[in-house]
């Protein structure tokens, strides 16, 4: 097994006195802030396709990213060489952006290390590879037993153990040990009308304990059922209709409709429709939106963010009123406030920026079944498949991968995949019912070329109208 099963105790990736010297060297040519981020990540993955274990893969990536800030300018360099010489060379490369020198040697004193233990109970490295294979085969069995029309099953399992230490010239010194596990089932069903797909993910900031045979079986059944159901799907409507989003699936709506637009980098560049709107009504009063890195075990959970700030629960919109944005360390520093624990990066090779963690809508008071029953004609979305937003205009899309027509208050015919499109502030105002059946879904969020794991959540809810991008008129 790559690395060991150890979940902590790797905080001494680089010794404290070395970190202090490297930070000092990074500021030798001036500058007001320097940071060293040292990361050691091991990953493993296994894929089953048509009952063949195609490949087990293991990988390890270790290195450090160093940034130095001079006024409005950030210099960044990274290296896989964790020796003091390698780190000093990276510090010099990051500081090369300095216009004119003259800072002199600064002595950096780090505070005591804050070392966050992992909450995972079964480290991926402690799990026999044979047990992983058994789970893959179990999922395949369950999926195929759902019906003879299932023609293709692909199951993937992956885990990563990410140890990091971050230290900066303000004295911040923190370490974290993040264990993440994911499991995906993808099915194809074939019928007279062609092929359809079903997909279910399980993912958490947890160890192998996440993957019980029951959870895996449920995902496999769900993926197979989804593909089979869609064989009878008719084209989705084209045009505006009320939309009911099932619990869990709709969190991505808020991620796209306003989440990205509430990130301080977009705000500070006036590249968001939500800039300058704190204190204003930006959504239906039914909307209370939270970004929360502290939800233990969820995909977007973090004890501490990639800049050393503890994860926290931040209310972004309260009863429709915009209360705050999400902040990373540097942008918060500039504003003389604390980071909200939203500074994240894909790896040591990337600069941190403002990112969401687990973003969710608080529960309402309606009954989920009642919401459907009170919708004469509309679309019921059982699962969403991602989305995209232009924060400057607010226009966003998200895709539905399992959806049905609602006719006379009842869920009826399955619909083929399509995107829904809307404008953030406009759609947020159209939330007219929120139920109590809250649940979360994992996702991968891409921004500026970097991917990070995030969670999304909400209870069943309705939008009074949204444009459905289908083909049926």
């Amino acid at each position: 097994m790559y690395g060991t099963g150890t979940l902590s105790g790797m905080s001494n990736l680089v010794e404290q006195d070395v970190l202090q010297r490297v930070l000092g060297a990074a500021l030798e040519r001036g500058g007001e802030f320097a940071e060293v981020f040292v990361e050691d990540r091991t990953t493993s993955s296994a894929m089953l396709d048509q009952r063949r274990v195609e490949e087990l893969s293991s990988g390890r990536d270790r290195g450090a990213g160093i940034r130095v800030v001079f006024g409005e300018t950030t210099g960044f360099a990274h290296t896989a060489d964790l020796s003091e010489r390698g780190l000093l060379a990276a510090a010099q490369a990051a500081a090369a952006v300095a216009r004119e020198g003259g800072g002199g040697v600064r002595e950096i004193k780090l505070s005591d290390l804050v070392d966050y233990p992992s909450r995972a109970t079964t480290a991926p490295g402690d799990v026999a590879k044979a047990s992983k294979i058994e789970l893959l085969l179990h999922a395949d069995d369950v999926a195929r037993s759902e019906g003879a029309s299932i023609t293709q099953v692909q199951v993937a399992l992956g885990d990563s153990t990410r140890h990091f230490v971050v230290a900066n010239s303000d004295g911040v010194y923190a370490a974290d040990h993040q264990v993440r596990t994911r499991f995906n089932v993808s099915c194809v069903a074939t019928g007279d009308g062609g092929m359809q797909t079903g997909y279910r993910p399980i993912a958490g900031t947890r160890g192998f304990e996440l993957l019980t045979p029951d959870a895996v079986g449920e995902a496999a059944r769900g993926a197979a059922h989804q593909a089979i159901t869609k064989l009878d799907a008719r084209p989705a409507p084209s045009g505006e209709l009320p939309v009911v989003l099932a619990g869990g699936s709709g969190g991505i709506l808020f991620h796209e409709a306003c989440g990205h637009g509430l990130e301080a980098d977009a705000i500070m560049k006036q590249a968001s429709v939500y800039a300058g709107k704190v204190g204003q009504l930006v959504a239906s009063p039914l909307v209370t939106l939270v970004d929360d890195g502290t939800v233990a075990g969820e995909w977007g959970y973090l004890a501490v963010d990639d800049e050393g700030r503890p994860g926290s629960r931040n209310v972004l919109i309260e009863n429709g009123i915009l209360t705050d944005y999400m902040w990373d360390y540097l942008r918060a520093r500039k504003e003389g406030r604390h980071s909200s624990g939203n500074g994240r990066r894909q790896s040591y090779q990337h600069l941190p920026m403002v990112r969401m963690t687990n973003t969710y809508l608080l529960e309402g008071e309606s009954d989920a079944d009642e919401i459907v029953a009170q919708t004469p004609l509309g679309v019921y979305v059982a699962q969403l498949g991602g989305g995209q937003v232009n924060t400057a205009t607010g226009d966003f899309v998200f895709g539905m991968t399992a959806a049905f027509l609602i006719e006379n208050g009842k869920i009826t015919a399955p619909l083929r995949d399509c995107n829904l499109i809307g404008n953030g502030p406009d759609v947020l105002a159209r939330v007219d019912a929120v139920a109590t059946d809250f649940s979360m879904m994992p996702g991968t969020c891409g921004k500026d070329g970097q991917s990070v794991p995030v969670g999304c959540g909400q209870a069943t809810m309705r939008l009074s109208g949204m444009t459905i991008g289908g083909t049926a008129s």
Partner: protein
Amino acid sequence: MSDLLEQADRILESAKGSDQIEIYLSRGVDTEVRAYEGEIEQLSTAASAGIGIRVLRDGESGAKVGTAWAGSLDPSAIEDALREARDNVRFATEDEFVAFALPDGVTPATLTLTDRSVTTTPLDDKIAMAIDLERIVRSGDPRIRQVESADYSDYVAEAAIVSTLGVRATYARSGAYVSVEAIASDGTNDQTGWGLSAGRAPGELDIDKAAHDALSRATRMLGAVKPASMKCTAVFDPRSAATLLAIIGGSLSGEAVVRGRSFFANRIGEDVAATSFTLVDDPTDPRHFSASVFDGEGLACRKNVMIENGQLKSFVYDTVSARRAGTSSTGSAVRGGIAGSPSAGCRALHLLPGELTQAEIFERVGNGVFVVSLTGVHSGVNPVSGDFSVGITGLMIRDGQLCEPVREITVASTLQRMLLDISYVGADVEWLPGSAAGQSLAIEGISVSGS
């Protein structure tokens, strides 16, 4: 360059045992500059290197593979990766079709894909390009309210692949890009426009073109409205057409086909597209920024005609998918860096150009929608079923002329229908970063969803 190949040889030599082994080494240097308000906002420089190892073991009912990778070329990291790959191989399923690539005698193309000036150009000159780009866009039109990002980036990347079956390949590529995102405002609403220039070296970049592209794309969208839903012809601009071709290329992967995940399966010889549609994957054409001498298994890249005059001719294969399909590799293995295993994919797609300019296509189409940007491609296109639905911005075409801008709408059909419904292929080929070039494409029968 060849020192990477020699290093791969040495690693292979020391790793040799009873198993077959493939060593993939990669190495690169990158520079990225972002300008903001006349200053450098971010400057990053980095060198990286890594190794991917695959171990293949023969058994009674076939062979099996285990892989491991490391983001470093340290001897200890390499040793760990080799040990992991050997352990992983034990757990794979023996499969008669699993094999490493065998040298097939195809002569590699002679291509010059690197330009030394990427590394010799002074950093200050690169910084100046990003700053100039931002300045030109900011001052280019009074309606430009903000420049969200103005970036210069470049890279030199090299790779070496060697195997115990005799593969021995090395290749390198350089690239330089500038891109800019502008926000225009008419006082009430904002619109964005993105401009780009790409080359193999900084000297090939056209800053003015990138700036003008962003300026015109942002300003011409001002006043955009959400139209009523309709069915009409959509003309995709070269950039959005390239995205479309890349999606179609995904379904032409022999791997998707043998896995039962492509709507093209079992349709070789059928008319799957309009007769004006001839789609080629040709990594040996140096006009493609993604051109390559060797594929991800170290076989020579070659030209493959996928769809000819509308007829489905072939798929692209790597070694394993080809064996499964009963054919041979088309030199089309792609791999996602050190952590990725080879899989079959299109690398450099382009269409045989038509004869019409964009304006002539508008004239012939008469009425429809001109698509200039796509969103939600990953969430709204299902390459297995062919369902297609994406968000767009664009302009209405009336009586052959571009009219009011439109936004917050989707265009939808199925990929199967769209290929058959292509009415015009433009002559205006644009070579773009990514796996496909693009040109104006008119497609009939598109459902536009609006208010």
